[in-house]
């Protein structure tokens, strides 16, 4: 178990290293000059050169990369133009928004977490619940309605569903405020009412996949011998389905859920854009547009961390669910 964790930690570090190098290289391969973009019109070439020097953009690539990585581990001094001393984990200074990247992240990460985590809970409950019910009521109108629902969800796009939800609940019925982010700790009611449409839209689309997956899994499990054994023992149906069938049917759902949630935590660009909320995803896209290297690095690395963590978590869950799985 601890050996498993050490191995996974090692491979995670390797993955993140590769991701950071690739991001760095891709950025400098881009045919654009970040400095000319941020300089007002009529910048003299001398001034541009001075700014580049200040930002360290004239240093060799390797030393720029080393400086950045050192900042994450130990912190570093960025010079007066970039806010001076930057404590570990230092993610650099954004010359576009003129603030420390860690401040940007601290502002936008809670937004994405607030969108994804409640939405994930919602889509898992809805998806798995629908899948179970339609498997147990196979062939009835309940089953057909659930299949129709999941087919609809799987065929729609988020920006369409989001726009319809906004139109109906915000602009026509005026039941909800225009989506916005308020900290959960400041005002839970406002937090929920500002984000509920995003949760519903995400949950609708995701739960479709989960409904179909868990329905298929449940149907397969119901024909397993051990389910027949459970019934032959005289167990009542809720226990047969809940304790014996569901636990076996849920395993592949856990895998997909882990990867989906991990991916979504890295940024829900379309959701954030549709509802006009500034989260990690939109921040990343904005950073790419304005050539804001430190912010790009930070958002990409954070997304990668979530994906890697989700993978480890899925493996741990697997071992917790299935005693035959040995972690090594």
């Amino acid at each position, binding site marked *: 178990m601890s050996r498993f964790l050490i191995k996974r930690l090692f491979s995670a570090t390797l993955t993140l290293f590769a991701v950071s190098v690739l991001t760095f290289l891709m950025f400098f391969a881009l045919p654009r000059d970040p400095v000319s973009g941020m300089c007002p019109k009529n910048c003299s070439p001398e001034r541009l050169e001075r700014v580049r020097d200040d930002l360290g953009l004239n240093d060799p690539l390797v030393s720029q990369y080393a400086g950045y990585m050192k900042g994450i581990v130990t912190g570093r001094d960025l010079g007066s133009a970039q806010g001076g001393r930057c404590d570990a984990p230092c993610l650099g200074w954004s010359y576009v928004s003129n603030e420390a990247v860690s401040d940007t992240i601290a502002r936008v990460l809670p937004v994405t977490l607030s969108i994804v985590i409640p939405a994930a809970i919602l889509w898992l409950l809805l998806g798995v619940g629908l899948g179970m019910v339609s498997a147990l009521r196979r062939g009835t109108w309940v089953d057909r309605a659930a299949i129709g629902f999941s087919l609809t969800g799987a065929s729609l796009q988020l920006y369409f569903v989001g726009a319809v939800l906004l139109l109906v609940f915000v602009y026509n019925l005026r039941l909800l405020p225009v989506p916005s982010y308020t900290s959960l700790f400041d005002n839970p009611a406002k937090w929920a009412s500002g984000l509920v449409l995003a949760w519903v839209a995400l949950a609708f689309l995701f739960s479709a996949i989960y409904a179909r997956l868990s329905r298929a899994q449940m149907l397969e499990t119901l024909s397993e011998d051990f389910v027949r054994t459970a019934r032959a023992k*005289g167990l009542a149906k809720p226990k047969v389905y809940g304790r014996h069938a569901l636990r076996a049917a849920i395993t592949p759902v856990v895998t997909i859920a882990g990867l989906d949630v991990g991916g979504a935590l890295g940024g829900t660009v379309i959701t954030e854009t549709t509802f006009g909320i500034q989260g990690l995803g939109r921040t990343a896209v904005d950073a790419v547009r304005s050539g804001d290297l430190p912010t790009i690095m930070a958002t990409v690395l954070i997304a990668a961390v979530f994906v890697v963590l989700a993978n480890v978590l899925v493996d741990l869950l697997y071992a917790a669910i299935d005693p035959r799985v040995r972690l090594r």
Partner: protein
Amino acid sequence: MDSSDPAPSGKPDDHPTVPAQRANEDAYLRVSDLRVRFDTEDGVVRAVDGVSFAVERGRTLGIVGESGSGKSVTSLAILGLHDPKRTTITGEISVGGRQVVGLADEEVRRLRGRDMAMIFQDPLSALHPYYTVGRQIAEAYRVHHPKASRRAARQRAIDMLDRVGIPQPARRFDQYPHEFSGGMRQRAMIAMSLVNDPALLIADEPTTALDVTVQAQILDLLADLQAEFHSAIILITHDLGVVGQVADEVLVMYGGRAVERGSVEQVLRAPQHPYTWGLLSSVPSLHGDADADLLPIRGNPPSLINLPPGCAFHPRCRYADRTGGRSQSEVPALRPVDAADATDAAGLAEATGHLVACHLGAAERAALYAEDIASVGVAR
């Protein structure tokens, strides 16, 4: 698609009036004229079509037949494990005096695991892979003893594991099925089925998935436990050797119908139905001529959606052309072996003695058997 009833001529008598030689009133399980039909997209499957038998406590009935002969369907019907939406069951199944057919699902559930229990063919897939063996046994106990404490159920499960010959039962309690060997898993399965002292135990091919040496141990264990708990056992198998070893009575099924029934001595020493001859001839004999060829049964088991008319076995029977076309048109009724002709129908569960469903006359069967079958060295 044939959802209508078969032609009257193609059906055994509906209300058999019978010459039971001896009726055992005290049979724990009594099955009369059981019919199980499944509605499928391809048509109606008559998986069991008019089967009757009875088993007393302390006795073992072996049900023999190929895959698709209806033997497992019969046992699942007794436990009420068929999906009621897709299955039509008629006839009578009486367990300890209670009529199971038509009983509310909740009532049957209460009988399951307590009065009647089942052992399945493959213990690896029949046990839940995610729960410890002990927990699964304790669960079976607590379903029917809701007042029992966790600790009492655990102790009961450990006692049962010990009783079925599993060493270090307290340690084994906390292990998972994949940590058990095949034979140990089947022992655990037996412990689970017997944890509530059921009066009826149905074992569906309990040794098929096991090594031959382990098979013998499991059969011995079942016999020991039967002597101790005095339970009625139904042993479903395709292995006549197993039947000869443990059964008291034998029921041979073909195409969802009973073709021969009798004591194990009668059926194995003086088999009457050409299908039973076929089963016996496909088993090598230790006592017969080592060079004798095995006689496989030609052809394949019939489709239960579209059973051959008349005797379902006739397309595979070497002697079907000796009955003047009756094998092709008329379903033979199960009747006593020595009955002069087919008008003497027998179908009651309790009818004892040697019964066979064949259009051939008793004398003709005896002659054919002596000439074609016994001479090859298969009779034991």
